[in-house]
């Protein structure tokens, strides 16, 4: 076997092995919390209703509706339920409303958002630069 081929194959095996090892390490131990069953149901609602087409979670998804990773912090349980069961008009629209969820679905999805909120993701999305400055100024 020629040298370039040997180097190439070695790179293939090492990179794949290293990649899966690091992934294993990221998921092992207590790195990932258990998902509460209510949150799992909420995740299914989120998927079936295709929320990801307009919203991002962890910044991945559609850019129309903004990020939902920390939305629980912003609205709280009651706020979320109200928003989802009595949907307002979409931004820029005169007739089209936000998707409507039943009470039960709203409960489940709120549990999912509560769980998302608790995932340590290096505090992404970052808080607006100005907010931070103001806070520092107040102190």
């Amino acid at each position, binding site marked *: 076997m*020629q040298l370039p*081929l040997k180097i*190439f194959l070695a790179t293939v095996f090492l*990179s794949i092995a290293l990649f899966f090892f690091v992934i294993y390490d990221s998921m092992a131990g207590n790195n990932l919390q258990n998902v509460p069953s209510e949150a799992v149901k909420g995740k299914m609602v989120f998927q079936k209703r295709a929320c990801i087409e307009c919203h991002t979670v*962890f910044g991945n998804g559609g850019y129309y509706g903004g990020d939902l990773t920390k939305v629980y912090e912003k609205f709280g349980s009651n706020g979320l339920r109200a928003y989802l069961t009595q949907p307002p008009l979409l*931004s820029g629209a005169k007739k089209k409303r936000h998707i409507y969820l039943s009470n039960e679905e709203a409960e489940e999805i709120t549990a999912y958002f509560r769980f998302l909120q608790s995932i340590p*993701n290096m505090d*992404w999305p970052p808080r607006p*630069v100005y907010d931070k400055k103001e806070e520092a100024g107040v102190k």
Partner: protein
Amino acid sequence: MFRSQHLSYKYALFAYFLFGLQGLVASGGAIDLLFPDLGNPIPFVSGRAFHLNVSIYWPLIGMIGAMYFFFCQEAEREFYSLKLITINFWILASTLGLILGSLLLGFNEGREYLEAIWPLKLATAACTILLCFNLLTTYLASDMPRSRATLISMVTGSVTLIIFYVPNIVSYAHPTVDEIAKFMVVHIWEEMSLELIGTGVLAALLIQVTKVKRQAVETAIYLDITFAILAGILATGHHYYWIGVPSYWLWIGGTFSAMQVLPAIVLLYTTVKSMTFKEIFDLSNRDKITLSLIGSSMFYHIFGAGFLGFLMAYPPLNRYVHGTYITSAHSHLALFGVFGFLVLALCFHILFTEIILVKKMYRWCWGAIISLNAGLLTMGIGLLIAGGLQVYFWRVIGLGIGETNEFIRPYLFIRAFGGFLYAIGSLTLTFVVIKSIWPKIQVIFQSEGRLSVINCDDLHRMHRLVGDLLQEEKKIEPLLKRIQVLYQSLLFFNKEK
């Protein structure tokens, strides 16, 4: 010409069809985003899901077709199983048909890019396995040197398709694991597997079209694919920064992403070096179109994928630009810019092997290429500005979603206009291809048993081989063997006629 090559036509045709369809549906989605009250027949949600899934599948289908076409040329023998080429096509086509159909009807699985119920995912995995089986058996049976770089890169690329798809067949309760698995396809397939396959196929095509010497590119291909593997796999980290994994991913992703520009540079250097201007003028019309599509792909490989990707992958910057239309600009410039154009080039070359590109259509092709490039650049610029504003409004001054949406509307309008130009280009090119192919449509879908087309290519190759034979006495034996194989296939075709 091998019969395997003939069987790959349908892949190329289907890729063109999907490409045209995608332009149409995407424009609908872009308009719905601007005017939500219009009552679009394809709502944004279904349209976007359709769009993302087809953006994974059509470059894949085109690449698989290109491999069936170029692999046997490089291995200088027929595929191990011709029947499997056809079977593989129909499984792939019907799987995709079911996925897209159910998405348009509003059945979502809710996982971006990978919307399919598990039986359809199994079918997709089965397709990649069939492909690898055929490639490996053919590779092992080939008389060519084992280390031939084009063969190695296509085989390795295809095997990695399986490895990184499998984790996605099952679903996960934890959203972090979901993301980890998703990017094994969205990132590794696109930025590594297709990169390997594309390099192999492109080299095969250039060796054929520009008559560059194989030895001259062999080392460069190895350099390219080694870099692509080394950087590509661990650079997946740039999608893992904020999904809830340990912080060492910032280092892994940042470091390896920085190396991702290397393969693009090697590829560009080799391609440019392998051509001279005089040669370009002597090319046939078909090859001129093919090469200008390849040229477009190279351009976006450097700027849209390499340069823009490089900037975005730097973690402190990514923290702010992530989750905005800047990502979308990069997706379009990189995914369509690099692999879209490459697949269009390859499929164009493949489809016009036996069918002649008439002069009138040739002019339309140029129009389409210009319109595609203009559309893509306009779209990219509109999205970059819209994304930049999102960064400013959301991450700097902390404005709400609704207000931000109002401010970025004009730029999304520019994007939609770019999409319109793009769609004109894509429909024109698809029209040229389908119109030229139409009279021969039955031949394209002919099954392997009934092929009886002798192609002049074979006679030309025979002629070349005899020429080589007269010059190189030392290597006479392997050459004789190859001539024997070719004669057999020619005789075989004649019998069937």
